[in-house]
């Protein structure tokens, strides 16, 4: 790929939208301005705006800009682990154009003030759009509702509310939250974990936990909450989103809830699509995550659920942690994994290459569906839902052919806790455009 100057307009020469036939795509004035015959465009072609840059993007796949419903940016509070700037830089390099920043910061994003602060930091950084998630309860304490309406009407326009990291375990409080956010078309994103069943839990309860002597995190702790919340959402007619679904049983429950016609959506993380709990025999806390890595049978069910749409989308649960929170004994380590810069590669490996999804399916699960669930503002949502002429030029270009060995030290995150270090993954993001402006070119942040 070469650039010959910086202009407001770009031609993506011989790019393959959604992996289809090659075409020359003109991005101008922040929108997809024209599709032209493949290879027909050169810098001196007629009809190009002044200063158009022609990029040789032959062989690259064009997708709508990716949307992550579940990112931990750690700011404010743990700027040593990640900042809005470093996290969104990682996001852009991973092909993302919007990330939803989880509320479990310090202070917690449970007021209009905090969500606006995070939103502004995102604007300042400029690598991608940052949509703050508001806490459901004050301080994530699960006791009383945070000012959900104030966050919704703030500049940050919060639509997704979550106590992620903690479960809204009180059934009555959960019911109220589900009902309350209907007023502004909000959604409650539940971290499904019955706390009494997971006290002290360290890993998936099962064969490996029995061997390793680590207290088990049973699948039923997730499934019991999903079943309860689906029933509540159906009862009050509200939208429920289930975070990081990790078990085969959860997939079944969500399938059941959708069959009932209830407004239940769900996400799965890349790591739950790829990794299993037998990795923990090394006791390396890089594999510690919540919900925990499960079994191969769960992985298969999650892939099938994502393929058939039972699970609506992929969300990274990008969770940076400082070295001292990971280079410890297992029990002392904090749960969480980096995900933004590896998500698309993992989805390629687990879904695309085995044939569970085509490129259009990948675009749906990683861009369109999360945009819908997250309630992105209408024009933008339409933009994200399309890369046709007239849509906002918010796109991601990737080279599907190379395999690369992940090196923790080369990631943009401030933290190093990737479970994929040393592993070879397919695909490489070459460029990301946000409303016509490149945030990544040649695989580097602009």
């Amino acid at each position, binding site marked *: 790929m070469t650039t010959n100057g910086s202009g407001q307009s770009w031609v993506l020469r011989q790019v393959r939208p959604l992996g289809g036939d090659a075409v020359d795509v003109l991005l101008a004035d922040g929108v997809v301005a024209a599709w032209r015959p493949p290879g027909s465009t050169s810098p001196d072609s007629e009809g190009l705006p002044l200063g158009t840059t022609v990029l040789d993007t032959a062989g690259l796949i064009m997708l709508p800009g990716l949307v992550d419903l579940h990112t931990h940016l750690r700011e404010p509070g743990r700027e040593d682990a990640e900042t809005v700037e470093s996290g969104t830089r990682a996001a852009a390099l991973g092909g993302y154009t919007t990330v939803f920043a989880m509320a479990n910061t310090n202070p917690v994003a449970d007021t209009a003030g905090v969500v606006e602060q995070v939103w502004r930091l995102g604007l300042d950084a400029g690598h991608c759009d940052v949509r703050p998630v508001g806490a459901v309860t004050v301080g994530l304490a699960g006791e009383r509702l945070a000012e959900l309406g104030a966050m919704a009407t703030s500049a940050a326009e919060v639509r997704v509310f979550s106590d992620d990291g903690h479960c809204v375990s009180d059934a009555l409080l959960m019911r109220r939250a589900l009902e309350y956010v209907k007023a502004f078309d909000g959604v409650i994103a539940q971290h499904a974990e019955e706390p009494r069943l997971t006290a002290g839990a*360290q890993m998936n*309860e*099962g*064969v*490996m*936990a*029995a*061997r*390793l*002597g*680590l*207290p*088990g995190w*049973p699948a039923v702790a997730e499934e019991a909450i999903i079943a309860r919340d689906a029933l509540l959402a159906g009862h009050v007619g509200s939208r429920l989103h289930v975070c990081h679904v990790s078990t085969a049983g959860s997939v079944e429950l969500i399938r059941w809830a959708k069959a009932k016609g209830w407004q239940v959506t769900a996400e799965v993380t890349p790591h739950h699509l790829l990794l299993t709990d037998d990795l923990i025999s*090394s*006791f*390396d806390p890089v594999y510690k995550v919540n919900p925990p890595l499960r079994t191969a049978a769960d992985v298969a069910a999650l892939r099938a659920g994502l393929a058939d749409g039972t699970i609506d989308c992929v969300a990274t649960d990008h969770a940076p942690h400082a070295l*001292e929170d990971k*280079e*410890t*004994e*297992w*029990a*002392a380590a904090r749960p969480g994994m980096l995900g933004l810069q590896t998500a698309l590669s993992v989805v390629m490996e687990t879904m695309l290459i085995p044939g569970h999804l085509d490129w259009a399916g990948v675009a749906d699960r990683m861009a369109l569906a999360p945009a819908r669930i997250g309630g992105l503002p209408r024009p933008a949502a339409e933009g994200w839902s399309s890369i046709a002429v007239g849509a906002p030029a918010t796109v991601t270009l990737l080279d599907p052919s190379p395999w690369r060995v992940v090196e923790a030290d080369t990631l943009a995150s401030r933290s190093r806790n990737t479970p994929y270090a040393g592993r070879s993954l397919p695909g490489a993001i070459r460029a990301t455009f946000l409303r016509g402006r490149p945030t990544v070119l040649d695989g580097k942040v602009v």
Partner: protein
Amino acid sequence: MKGHLLSTEDLSRDDALVVLDTAERMARVAEASVRKLPTLRGRTVVNLFFEDSTRTRTSFEVAAKRLSADVINFSARGSSVSKGESLKDTAQTLEAMGADAVVCRHPASGAPHRLATWVRGSVVNAGDGTHEHPTQALLDAFTMRRRLGRVDGLAVTIVGDVLHSRVARSNVWLLTTLGASVTVVAPPTLLPLGVSSWPVEVSYDLDAVLPKSDVVMMLRVQRERMSAAFFPTEREYSRRYGLDVDRAATLPEHALVMHPGPMVRGMEIASAVADSARSTVVEQVANGVSVRMAVLYLLLGGSGEVS
């Protein structure tokens, strides 16, 4: 193989037998008039104990000193460890002290595995959380072999809080590797959910199993388990799973009663049984020294490479 002893699960039958055979030789040393050997002169063994265990620490200390190693006791209490120093920092400190072996006891499962990635010396797991306690299992197997002449073919029954027991885990792997058939007996709440994948029989009925047992190993049951609803009362536990005099009488004539200690007398084992002739509780302590000498010798007695 790198020179660590972290678990019995990854110990091959041959390696386990080498440890037991070597321990037998070490036990002979105890019969010499001079019981100290120059074997590990100039080597440094660090006892790194994050949990109080005078019994295990002393056993390793005696073993190391009989082999003339220098011993440093580094306990969590009263050191920087209790002031929030991380395990990794501690590892680097030990490294700087030139530790050839680190004997590690830690309340977190897997801590010695982590330690082994941070130090150059050999790491010996002296009990990690609810994971493993390999030298305890080795000394248990050694005790069985000395008393009954073999481990292969023995019917061994392990009774009690298997869920939280590192001793049970290490024994299950080691004894089955050595050819014993193992039955675990406990209330279902005190068995791990994944126990069905273990190479053992599971029973909830102690009375049915005892007459067929060559060895019965009683595990300590901590009273605080009651508060977490693992069982209703101490009395009920004791009635269903305690080894009292009447139950012990149903054991075969030759059968051994073992306990890794410390015992809760009256709870899982009656005093009269613990002190009976079939009890190995005291010789388990002596055998512990021989087994730990063997482990230290096998880890530190050569160049560090397998010839």
